[in-house]
């Protein structure tokens, strides 16, 4: 007899349950659903705002329902997960080298977090928190 290579197949729907690193990956990817939905909320808000004071007041009220709060908490969790996963890989995607010394990844990541804190604080201050 001769060759008969055996091909193992992977489930195209549940492969990601096989390893913790794949689950972490999928969590990162799924963050887009929450970020996308939240963006939708903003669009709705803008539309309401453009419709006048009453429409806007209704929107603000809707944002304070328990369902909305739960949604936003969830969105916040995934958004933060997105932020950390995004920052943590920047040294890979955009390494920095000066002369023949490589800037350590931790510095690049640290700079991103520092920027993030500044921007977030500015936004919160601007809003009046």
């Amino acid at each position, binding site marked *: 007899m001769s060759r008969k290579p055996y091909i193992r197949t992977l489930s195209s*729907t549940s492969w990601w349950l096989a390893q913790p690193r794949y689950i972490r990956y999928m969590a990162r*990817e799924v963050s887009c659903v929450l970020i996308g939905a939240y963006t939708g909320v903003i669009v709705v808000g*803008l539309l309401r*705002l*453009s419709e006048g004071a009453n429409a*806007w007041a209704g929107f603000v009220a809707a*944002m304070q329902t328990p369902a909305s709060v739960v949604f936003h908490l969830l969105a916040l969790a995934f958004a933060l997960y997105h932020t950390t996963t995004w920052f943590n890989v920047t040294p890979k995607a955009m390494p920095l080298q000066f002369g023949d010394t490589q800037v350590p990844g931790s510095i690049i990541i640290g700079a991103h977090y520092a920027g*993030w804190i500044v921007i977030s604080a500015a936004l919160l201050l601007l809003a009046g*928190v």
Partner: protein
Amino acid sequence: MARSNKPIVWSLFAAGGTFAAFVTPAMIVVTGLALSFGLLPPEALSYERLSGLIENPIAKGIVFLTVFLPAWHAAHRLRITAHDFGIREDGLVMMVCYGLASVATVMAVYALLSL
């Protein structure tokens, strides 16, 4: 093999991902949680204050970006995630994802222009 034209959507994905990483968590807190948790006085998000703020064209531009970039980031990632969940109709998925992002973009532009 042909060179891909993915750079168009990918550049939006990357820019959007960076923008979302820096801005979205704080935005969620401000627009979605701060009032409920009493972190903000109600007048902070009053109609007068916001419509006043947004009259400034620069502010309009920034608000546009907060919709446009994350929307396309999310759309592109969703397209890939659909594939990861075993949905192999990439053409259809692409239309839905990018379609949603386009709708969001257009509506945001419409709202901003009418403010």
